[in-house]
């Protein structure tokens, strides 16, 4: 497993779908993983990253409130697999010293992770087979590129491989 950060949330211009960009936390040449997500989950992640507090608790706030109320603790989340273009994730929940892995969509896992301030992991195989090497992308324009440029290199063929 490798630890990643949420680099940013954006809209994929090709599919007009929200997209979350995860970037490897450590290493010289960091890998980037793109995951297409739903609008409300994108909003839930973005809202928290920008520390905006909506007037009423949104669904992922409620998830966290329920966990906190019953003395549960989210330890981490992990993007575990991709099958038929669908990403799978798990939320590791701890209660009374026991841990439980809850099946989840990556978008929900990420929205929960940013609220609980816990690490986000990706299985090595997932990032190996589906990640972009940041350095690779940088080759064409070595000086000005950042992760955002990855998105500009996306074409429909690549986009087809990623849906959540």
């Amino acid at each position, binding site marked *: 497993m490798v630890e990643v950060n949420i680099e940013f949330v954006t809209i994929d211009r090709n599919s007009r779908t929200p997209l979350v960009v995860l970037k490897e936390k450590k290493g010289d040449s960091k890998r980037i993983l793109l995951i297409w997500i739903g609008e409300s989950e994108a909003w839930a992640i973005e809202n928290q990253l920008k520390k905006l507090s909506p*007037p009423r608790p949104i*669904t992922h706030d*409620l998830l966290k409130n329920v966990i906190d109320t019953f003395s549960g603790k989210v330890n981490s989340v992990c993007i575990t697999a991709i099958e038929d273009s669908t990403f799978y994730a798990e939320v590791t929940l701890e209660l009374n010293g026991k841990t439980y892995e809850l099946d989840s969509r990556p978008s*929900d896992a990420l929205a929960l992770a940013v609220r609980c301030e816990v690490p986000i992991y990706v299985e090595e195989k997932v990032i190996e087979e589906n990640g972009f090497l940041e350095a690779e992308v940088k080759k064409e324009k070595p000086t000005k590129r950042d992760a955002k440029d990855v998105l500009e290199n996306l074409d429909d063929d690549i986009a087809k491989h990623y849906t959540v």
Partner: protein
Amino acid sequence: MVEVKVDYISTDKNTGTQVVILEQICGDPIHRLMIWIGESEAAAISTFLDKKSTPRPMTHDLLKNIVDTLSTTVNAVHITKVEESTFYAKMSLKTDTQEISIDSRPSDAIAVAIRCNAPIYVDDDVLENHGFLEKENQDG
């Protein structure tokens, strides 16, 4: 407190917003209540009511899994008040030893209640002041 059930999900023709129509279970006349909700919560409610299966757990399915994992049950949900056109709700969760209410939007509370087979209640004042009788329903 008056027990209601989800009658249907519709779209408000004026605003294009999703609405959930709650219907009083017992009583004469039957009151209904219309609450404006978000698209994804509307989808979460209608997907479950239509017994559609989704390839991956939706957010409220995850919430139910969390509730189950925490060894608690959703006892009931309550639509408690309306302030400045915003509806407030509470989810009542119960363990062996305690019962705790958690602040929630009605849409989330309803999406969880139907998954957990928990009753949905509306405060008397809310139904009286914001409810309507069937013949008054202009929405069709």
